[in-house]
């Protein structure tokens, strides 16, 4: 609305119902569409905000509180060549999948969507003694329907696997994942790295029509490696390692969270 505009009555004027009704109508019009022109500066207080209107949702799946006796140690990827599609969904304990199918989150144009995860790796063993190898945790979501059968990568780029960052391919487009080193220099000989928490963080600003998020999950794949070789050869980020390594990785805990901010 705009401000209500009325004209004062003047003493001596004839009383006119139409004149007074015009004034009341102006006010009625104004009150039907109150906006910033009507509200005093700093006139809105926290108690007028029933909920924090700019924070749409916070959803989290946390396995940390599960008792130790239910841990599924021995999360294994092995046998398959690292370059093959050895991808598996993280199903530790009750599963790290964030199931929103019963009440999907609606994302509107302009919203900031943040998806974060933490994956605690406790133990890795591998047949390959090298420090520059890793596992990859990639974020997926289902934005199709509530059946949760249409998971796709958060970024919309290719799944990490055969097509991931071959030498010469751009790797900067694949940013919806986090890495887990499987050894560090201190324990290089034993190739048995200390506990490591891999933090994934993916954010984007939505554009276009409303989008429904039905579920989010994490996929673990490996083993990938980075090789150094002489200049002129193929050392780019994460090509396939030689040596046909197989390995076992224990994921102890996972947390996965979705936050949506509006305006």
């Amino acid at each position, binding site marked *: 609305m705009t*401000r*209500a505009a*009325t004209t*004062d*009555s003047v*003493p*001596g004027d004839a*009383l006119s119902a139409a004149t007074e009704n015009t*004034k009341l109508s102006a*006010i009625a019009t104004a*009150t039907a569409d*109150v906006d910033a*022109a*009507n*509200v*005093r*500066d700093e*006139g*809105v207080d926290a*108690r*007028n*905000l*029933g*909920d924090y*209107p*700019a924070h*749409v949702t916070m959803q989290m799946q946390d396995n940390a509180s599960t008792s130790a006796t239910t841990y599924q140690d021995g999360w294994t990827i092995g046998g398959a060549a690292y370059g093959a599609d050895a991808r598996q969904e993280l199903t530790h304990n009750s599963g790290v999948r964030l199931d929103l199918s019963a009440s999907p989150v609606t994302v509107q144009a*302009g919203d*900031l969507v*943040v998806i974060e995860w933490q994956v605690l790796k406790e133990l890795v063993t591998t047949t390959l003694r090298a*420090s*520059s*190898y890793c596992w990859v945790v990639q974020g997926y979501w289902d934005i199709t329907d509530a059946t949760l059968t249409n998971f796709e990568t958060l970024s919309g780029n290719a799944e990490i696997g055969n097509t991931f960052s071959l*030498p010469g391919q751009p*790797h*900067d487009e*694949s*940013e919806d*994942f*986090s*890495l887990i*080193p499987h050894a*560090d*220099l*201190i324990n290089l000989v034993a190739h048995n790295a200390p506990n490591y928490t891999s*933090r*994934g*963080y*993916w*954010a984007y600003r939505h554009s276009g029509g409303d989008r429904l998020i039905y579920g989010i999950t994490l996929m673990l794949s490996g083993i990938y490696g*980075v090789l*150094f070789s002489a*200049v*002129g*050869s193929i*050392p*780019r*980020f994460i090509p396939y390692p030689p040596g046909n390594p197989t390995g076992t990785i224990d994921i102890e805990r996972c947390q996965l969270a979705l936050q949506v901010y*509006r*305006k």
Partner: protein
Amino acid sequence: MTFRWTRRHVRTLNIPYALGFNAELNHYKGELNSGIDRDNLPTGPSGVTSPMMVDGALHKWGLQSEMEIDVSMQRHPVAPFVGPSYSQYLGGWHVHLDEEVEEDWLEGTLHCVFNGHVWRNTAYASQGRTWFKFAILFNGAIVHETDRIYGSIHQVHLECVIPVASGSGKVQVAWRANSPIGVEAATADILTWAGGKLVAFNRYR
């Protein structure tokens, strides 16, 4: 204004008194004209909701995606490697200039997050003494940094909340890796990083 009227209702047979009527009406009108405040507005779930608010009413943010090591540090087309060699880099802080977040922030807090993955060459490392660090800068000053990371391949996650004053502010990422230990060749690859996300989230005071 106040929600309670200081004027009284007109009394019977008093309406023709124009000045009194004006006073009543103008007080009412004044309330609507920039006088509505917390006393008039509802509270709780029926209060102010998101559609009623303008963009940036409570917070604003800046976002950079698909960040990777500066083009100036990449060795194309000399080699397919995307990081610098020891002939290019000697171990100091290198501010990443290709992507940054710069906004006019408002007084409050600034929540800064950087996430990316890093590869550090250890092929020439002597007893594992190669390391790297990352930092978040606000207007050129380091506000958060990692410890030295003695590893080859890592995920880097930096997150901090700092107070900010109103005005323009630039959030950047910087990195460094230790200088040659003595056995590295000038053409040896040092470090590369990619998959970077940088978010700066300004919550107003």
